[in-house]
């Protein structure tokens, strides 16, 4: 990032949320790079940027689309890069219809299920047919929410049957990706940006100039985003839009380029790589789904075709090695490597679905591991009421967080909805160890694993998660020992034997070694693997997470590598270990031109050394190291062997960067602007108001406010957006208990513009009550010019900022109302992340009422708005869509769950 010439921070408040990471931006700025911050609020990031451009929350695709349009129409794209490294020249299926033609829907939309059949988005095959999503046929007819496509942007792209595509290198064919893209974004103009985002044309021009002048051979622009993009009903598409722009400008795989995700938790990357997520197995392998992955071969075919290009083609090796790591001797070729020990999904089983299941008494036991959903999750009331339906709850944390104490001092006790004496839930609070009281690795946001050594033993009865789960597993296995029950086999056959120290703490390095994997047979039996390319699909290797293979190469814990940064080059490859293969920039083959030469001396990174016959440079090449630039291997080879010398995107099925996503994104091959679930603005681009593929949950406890153009929209006239402050950490479990952090931001507040304060009679630093269709909270009022009313679509849109760190409880040093209580649950269909960055509300002076009167206030607003479970939950709002979708149900019923 420090190498960038221009840095666009959008959807992130980097200086506040990642102050230490911001040093690299500061350094780039000191070297002359331009830093532009695009955000609804003027934040501490804006304060040190060259320019702040206020934007209406949730309108980012309009802006990014307009930038794409600007680049294309002004002919500013990086021609050699785009033609060689992206799928711009690839032809798309003849049946494809764009959102431009269908009023905001793409071809293949099934209103019955609220989901797309993506067949018509696929590439045209060389023979004239189409290339299917491998195994995609089975998917037809499944419900939208039944498909958790998963966060696969961590590694590779989704599967294609093979990679023999039709191309038109002149890019003139109207079916080329380039022409489709050009048409799709033609109406995303600066004027549209002004109208939808509230950004005036001059500011847009400034931004467009800054980006395009700082892209090309000599210069690069970098984007940084965070949850400001992901937490939307079309979050994945925000990132896709930026990726398209960056690919067009040649800003991927090069120094100072790319799209940097700024993540908020120490190991949030690690917990996706080795997922505590329902839909994934370690290394982005999917969890098997009933109906799609009933047999092992179905499962493997669905991940990747052997005939496609790139490293995903070897998914069988990765999967079998994982099953060997887990079930050892019990995993044999005969039993498909114990594939049937894996439980099956039947839909989305994400945290919000789980909470709704709790409310229906389907869930009995719940573990909270360093997480505080009573404060940190959307629709907090639903979370707390859900927990009150549990039989038992285990909370493991450092402090007595609100999720452990809601039964005696939660907001529902105060409002009278719950009575402590009536709550049946058993609650176990188990004190956890802090980061210095256990050894282990975190994976940071740039995929770097760093080992932490244990400094001291945990105090009192505190325990690490490692020890707790090891002991729990042992205890369960002891209790089940001798069981003849077939369903207990996976537990009893599990490899669950780790060396422990005198306190009973398992050796983290032994676990890391298992994750890394080892040879199980042959001359090297027992030895650690050194690279995932050594994994074999014959049971001779094991690896708990294939992308981490190599972290324990030669029996050395490379995550603990600590050669001081000042003694190394800029990539600092001897500090920690980055997956895959200790590579610091992914797809870095793209830093050289098709002939293998650096695009420019200034941006030199990886290049082809003709004499040595290999790729060399500052980093580990992300490419077969001896594949010459001009190589044209037989495409039928499949896998890595099929990559041509200029296919830098080695994890994509065709080796190219995807401007157009023929598969893998469930809500459209091209990012398209839809309004948030709740919006005071009508979608000026399409008759379709919201993302038609979003996941909605029409429930009385999850009502949505009416959007622009429907009656009652004026009841919740303002947009609010939630965010973090530097001084606190998420739901506060690690900050509100610390006096030094609490004193810095002691009270919940809301940020409003002077104009809104005047409009609603809000007094500076007095109290205000904020009411959404779900709840009402109170906050102190910060009246500040940092909040700017935006002129959008001919009227003024006021935005209200709400930090979400506070919660109602008695144990923390500071407490307050939780902003997340205001939010509803509406999810992005790709990754099932909720929309918490934009919703609507009303604000009024004074504190909120207490007790039952609080519920009455919320109900009074709901009644005034006419909000019912149907409000805002019609998936298709485009009136013309009727004719396209004869099967559409009258009630627009779109619940993710059938019946």
């Amino acid at each position: 990032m420090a190498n960038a010439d221009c840095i666009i921070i959008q959807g992130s408040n980097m200086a506040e949320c990642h102050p230490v990471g911001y040093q690299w931006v500061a350094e780039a700025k000191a070297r002359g790079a331009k830093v532009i911050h695009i955000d609804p609020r003027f934040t501490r990031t804006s304060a040190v940027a060259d320019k702040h451009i206020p934007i209406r929350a949730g309108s980012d695709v309009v802006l990014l689309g307009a930038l794409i349009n600007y680049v294309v129409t002004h002919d500013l794209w990086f021609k050699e890069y785009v033609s060689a490294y992206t799928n711009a020249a690839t032809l798309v299926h003849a049946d494809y219809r764009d959102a431009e033609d269908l009023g905001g829907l793409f071809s293949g939309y099934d209103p019955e299920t609220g989901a797309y059949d993506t067949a018509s988005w696929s590439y045209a095959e060389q023979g004239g047919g189409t290339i299917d999503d491998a195994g995609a046929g089975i998917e037809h007819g499944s419900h939208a929410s039944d498909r958790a496509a998963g966060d696969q942007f961590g590694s590779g792209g989704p599967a294609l049957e093979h990679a023999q595509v039709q191309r038109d290198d002149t890019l003139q064919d109207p079916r080329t990706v380039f022409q489709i893209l050009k048409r799709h974004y033609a109406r995303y103009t600066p004027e549209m940006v002004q109208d939808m985002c509230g950004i005036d044309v001059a500011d847009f021009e400034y931004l467009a100039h800054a980006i395009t002048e700082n892209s090309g051979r000599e210069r690069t622009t970098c984007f940084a985003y965070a949850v400001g993009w992901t937490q939307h009903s079309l979050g994945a598409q925000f990132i896709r839009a930026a990726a398209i722009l960056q690919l067009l400008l040649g800003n991927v795989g090069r120094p100072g380029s790319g799209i940097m995700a700024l993540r908020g938790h120490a190991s949030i990357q690690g917990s996706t790589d080795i997922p505590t997520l329902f839909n994934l197995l370690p290394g982005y392998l999917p969890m098997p789904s009933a109906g799609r992955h009933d047999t092992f071969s179905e499962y493997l075919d669905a991940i990747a075709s052997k005939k496609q290009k790139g490293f995903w083609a070897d998914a069988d090796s990765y999967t079998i090695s994982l099953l060997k790591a887990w079930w050892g001797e019990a995993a044999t070729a005969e039993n498909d490597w114990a594939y049937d020990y894996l439980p099956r999904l039947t839909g989305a089983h994400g945290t919000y679905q789980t909470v709704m299941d709790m409310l229906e008494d389907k869930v009995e036991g719940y573990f909270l591991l360093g997480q505080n959903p009573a404060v940190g999750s959307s629709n907090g009331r639903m979370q707390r009421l859900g927990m009150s339906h549990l039989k038992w709850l285990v909370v493991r944390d450092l402090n007595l967080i609100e999720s452990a104490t809601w039964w005696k001092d939660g907001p529902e006790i105060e409002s009278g909805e719950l009575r402590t004496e009536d709550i049946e839930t058993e609650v176990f609070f188990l004190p956890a160890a802090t980061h210095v009281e256990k050894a282990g690795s975190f994976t940071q946001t740039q995929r770097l694993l760093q080992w932490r050594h244990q400094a001291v033993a945990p105090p009192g009865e505190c325990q690490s998660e490692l020890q707790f789960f090891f002991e729990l597993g042992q205890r369960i296995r002891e209790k089940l020992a001798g069981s003849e029950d077939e369903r207990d086999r996976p537990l009893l056959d599990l490899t669950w034997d780790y060396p422990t120290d005198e306190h009973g703490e398992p050796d983290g390095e032994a676990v890391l070694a298992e994750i890394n994997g080892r040879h199980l047979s042959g001359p090297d039996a027992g030895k650690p693997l050194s690279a995932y390319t050594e994994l074999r699909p014959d049971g001779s290797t094991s690896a708990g997470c294939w992308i981490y293979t190599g972290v324990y190469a030669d029996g050395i814990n490379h995550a603990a590598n600590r050669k001081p940064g000042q003694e190394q080059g800029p990539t600092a490859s001897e500090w920690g270990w980055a997956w895959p293969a200790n590579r610091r920039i992914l797809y870095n083959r793209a830093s050289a031109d098709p002939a293998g030469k650096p695009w420019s001396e200034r941006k030199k990174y990886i290049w082809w050394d003709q004499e040595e016959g290999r790729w060399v440079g500052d980093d580990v090449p992300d490419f077969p190291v001896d594949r010459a630039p001009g190589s044209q291997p037989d495409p039928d080879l499949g896998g890595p062997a099929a990559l041509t010398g200029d296919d830098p995107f080695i994890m994509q099925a065709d080796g190219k960067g995807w401007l157009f996503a023929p598969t893998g994104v469930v809500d459209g091959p091209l990012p398209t602007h839809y309004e948030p679930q709740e919006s005071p603005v009508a979608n000026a681009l399409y008759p379709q108001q919201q993302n038609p593929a979003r996941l909605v949950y029409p429930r009385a406890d999850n009502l949505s406010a009416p959007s622009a153009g429907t009656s009652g929209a004026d009841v919740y006239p303002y947009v609010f957006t939630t965010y973090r402050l530097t001084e606190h950490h998420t739901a506060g479990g690690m900050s509100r208990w610390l006096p030094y952090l609490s004193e810095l931001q002691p009270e919940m507040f809301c940020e409003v513009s002077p104009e809104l304060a005047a409009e609603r009679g809000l007094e500076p630093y007095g109290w205000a009550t904020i009411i959404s269709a779900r709840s009402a909270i109170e906050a102190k009022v910060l009246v500040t010019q940092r909040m700017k009313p935006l002129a959008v679509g001919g009227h003024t849109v006021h935005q209200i900022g709400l930090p979400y760190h506070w919660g109602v409880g008695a144990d923390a040093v500071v407490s307050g109302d939780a902003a997340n209580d205001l939010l509803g649950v509406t999810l992005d269909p790709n990754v099932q992340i909720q929309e918490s960055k934009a919703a609507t509300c009303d604000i009024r002076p004074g504190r909120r009422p207490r007790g039952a009167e609080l519920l009455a206030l919320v109900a009074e607003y709901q009644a005034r708005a006419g909000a019912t479970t149907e409000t805002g939950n019609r998936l298709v709002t485009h009136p013309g869509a009727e004719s396209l979708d004869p099967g559409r149900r009258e009630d627009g019923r779109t619940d993710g769950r059938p019946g």
Partner: protein
Amino acid sequence: MGQLSGPTDPAADARWEDQQPRKGFFTDTSICIGCKACEVACKEWNHNPQDGNLELLESSYDNTGGLGASTWRHVAFVEQGQERITEARESGRALVNLGMPRIGPPPTAASAGPDLANVDTTPPDTADFRWLMSSDVCKHCTHAGCLDVCPTGALFRTEFGTVVVQDDVCNGCGTCVAGCPFGVIERRSDGMVAVAAQREEQHAKHPAVPNVGVAQKCTLCYDRLVNDETPACAKACPTTSIKFGNHDDMVETARERVVSLHQQGLTEARLYGANELDGVGGTGAVFLLLDEPEVYGLPPDPRVPTADLPQMYRRAGMAVAGMVAAAALAFLGGRA
């Protein structure tokens, strides 16, 4: 005897034999992101207690208020509109046009400084709004008011030229508090704050507040300096807004930085404390500000009171003489 005012080397003035190069901070507020890491790192290192009543202080994101006995680094937050930005730019330009003599050898770039008369008042990317952040700290003055008025020798000048309170000596007379022209040093009260009743038990668990009743302020991490370590705040600062080093280098760096900002048209940039001819003989902690000092809560023309002490003693002498004379007169008038 040491000097009471004017340029001097303070450690030499205090007769240190093993004198070290004078240490200081340069706080460049133009790159401060207001994260307050300095405040926390300082409290962690010095075990300073929590400060304040845990409520919003009605000053943007600043909830610790100012420097005090338990807050030795303090980040100020100032929100300004376009009018004020223009004024700041103008006042900065006026400063340049004063043709202030530079002290010591001019910095390399400064001698070839830009002709600011021709610089556009509206530099690129002018905002109609800005949010200033600035981390304040003890100035470690060349002529330290607090030190000179301290009756016990609790406050002393270190071999690094910094000013430090010895907790074990101070008897809390409070004279230094009034002696500081920057309002930095403060006597620590119980250090605890009024807390909600339900938290009393929890607060009872807190370790006892150290050094109650004793004057407290930044020590420039004297205990770290003796071990050649960087002060906690400067070490933590994510963007190097707080720089630490030899005072001469700090002043030099500050001068270069202000020149570079002027060249970008940011005439509002100015230095604070870099002039050894000022009322305190220059400060050990130098700042780059983007507006008038009082905007950040700094005095615009501080003068160490001790500079006038000889005069005060003379006047007091005259008064004493007058009093004795009056008494004599009263008695000499003969028996009544």
